[in-house]
């Protein structure tokens, strides 16, 4: 965790390119509080803001070769991802709304297991937070990615997708185009 606010946090990966997929559910622990977030953005950039990487590998046959011949690259680049906070767990109880305090810097961020995803997605209340969040990626893209990701935790994917679709149809009853875009993204 390298940046935290009430509505979201940014984490840096220990290994380059070990980024969780867009829309996956991640969590971070902070004493008694467990925060859940949905990955909405990821980036791999140079460690130093002013120094851009230069094109390499003209002589190499494979991409892997570049990293083999210049192993320092792995140390000069970093992978980061941002997550929007969609809920928290306090005293073993799940709440699908924002936690009282943001996460702390340097706390560890984990990818949630399928069981945790199932537990969290029993309620679709988090969709409303995603719909209203102002994010650099389009909300439709993020929501459909998130639902696709979550559905993988279920044996009956179809039922989950339909249930999520219905919830969205209610939330987006006044915005048909947005609904259409999301449904287009999640249909099996």
């Amino acid at each position: 965790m390298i940046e935290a606010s009430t509505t979201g946090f940014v984490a840096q990966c220990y290994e380059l390119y070990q980024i969780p997929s867009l829309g996956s559910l991640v969590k971070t622990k902070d004493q008694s509080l467990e925060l859940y977030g949905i990955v909405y953005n990821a980036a791999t950039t140079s460690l130093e803001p002013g120094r851009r990487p230069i094109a390499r590998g003209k002589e190499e046959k494979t991409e892997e070769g570049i990293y083999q011949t210049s192993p320092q690259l792995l140390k000069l680049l970093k992978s980061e991802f941002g997550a929007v906070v969609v809920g928290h767990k306090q005293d073993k109880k799940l709440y699908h709304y924002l936690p009282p305090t943001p996460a702390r810097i340097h706390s560890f961020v984990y990818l949630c297991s399928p069981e945790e995803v199932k537990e969290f997605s029993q309620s679709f209340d988090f969709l409303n937070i995603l719909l209203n969040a102002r994010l650099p990626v389009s909300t439709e893209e993020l929501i459909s990615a998130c639902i696709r990701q979550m559905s993988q935790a279920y044996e009956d994917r179809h039922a989950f997708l339909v249930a999520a679709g219905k919830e969205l149809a209610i939330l987006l009853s006044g915005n048909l185009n947005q609904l259409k875009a999301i449904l287009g993204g999640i249909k099996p």
Partner: protein
Amino acid sequence: MTENQRLGIVVSGSLGKGVEVRLDSSASVEDMVVGRFVTIEGQKRRFFGMITDVSLGVTDPSLTVVPPDVSDPFIAEVIAGTSTFGTLHVSPSLVISGDVASMLEGPQPVKTIPSHFSEVRLASQRDVELVFGTEDEKRFFIGTPLDMETKVCLNLEELVKRSNGVFGKSGTGKTFLTRLLLIGMLQKGTAVNLVFDMHSEYGWESRDERGRRVKALKQLFSSQVAVFTLDEESSRRRKVSTDFVVRIGYDEIEPEDIALLRQTLNLTELAVEAVYQLSGRFGKSWLQDTVNLKGTEELPEGLNIHEGSLQNLQRGLATIGRLPFLVSDAPDNAVKRILEYLDRGINVILEFGRYTDITAYILVANLLTRRIHARYREGMERAIGEATAPPRPLVITIEEAHRFLNPEVASQTIFGTIAREMRKYNVTLLVVDQRPSGIDSEVMSQMGTKITCLLDDERDIDSVLTGVPNKSELKSVLSKLESKQQALIFGHAVPMPVVVRTREYGSAQSYKDFIPKEVEKDIEKLWE
């Protein structure tokens, strides 16, 4: 659909217009049919009602302009029940409060509506039993609600207290319904019946539309039913065991009978006026004397009848005179005989045989009923004066009722009087008709219970539903009835309007069900 299935929730409504129910996504709008029974679980009370309309709704009007791609099953499944949904219009008619006292009282008419978002379910068998009761000494099983097996029972004791009507287009099952009602009255012994059987189908067996033989009352309840006939020959050919052949003497016809036939005989007002003058002068033999007149010059002195009127009248009377059951000297008094049977509690069915002509029907029905009614009136008055038992309740069944009860003659005929004065003299009517709009609205509004099969003429529907609260809702139910075996019942004998699939009639088992167990043995051979 399973019993007691949740359908949706109440979203709006009013007592006057009924409530709107938004369907759950699990309930398909296509499974909802008007006329079905539902229960609404309010916070304190339970409501019973009937679906009277089904409609479609969308949350976003643009959906109707740019419909989503429903060829994709996923999209179709998602938007069903969310963006697009079905709504039901339910008119609650009965209510049960939760407390013990009101549980004992049973369902009461509604005076309020369920609160917002009350749950709506399909009515269960128990609910229907609670509302319509179970078959007992007073209640007769008439049919089952739509898509259910429960019995809907009519309270016959209440039924016979008022005049009732059976309506429906030709071929929708009026005769079957009437037969059922008559059987019910016979079975429960709530009243004796006098049936003017125009098409000879209530007494002895006839054929239904599919050509199946259907037994009738005399065959099922031989000891309680007497068949009288006007047409001995026809009855003999159909192998009907008749009890009495009705002959009517010319002297029994009174001026009032002619007045009623004015339209059918095409008589002028003046001609009818002349009848009264002539009968006043000639006395009992006026009919024959009038027919025998050669012209106005033969008129007794003091009678001022115009030539044209006399000719008009003579032509009309000649039509009557040609009716074979009219004789100059009747051997036996038909009215007396009928009353004898009725007094003994035996139901009388008068077959018309070949004389299905409306003139004969009106003449005979009116003539007999007027006298029987007069006798009942005397009996009733005596009963009041001397504190003796009043005569048995009598139900007179007439077909083609609009001929007797149309606005022009309803005030003159005895049937109009009976329909209006109801049960004061223990005589009520069972009116069978296919053109209820032809019946005087005053008479229609006095009817206790109306049982109606499919009607599609706007005026007929309006006239059947006169005096009914939430008329427009029943209207949509009525016009959507199936053309066979379905009827809407509302009024005095049922706690709330109900659409029934009429009880089966015509199979061996159905006959068996009508007969009380003790007598079953004696007539077992009937269905062998």
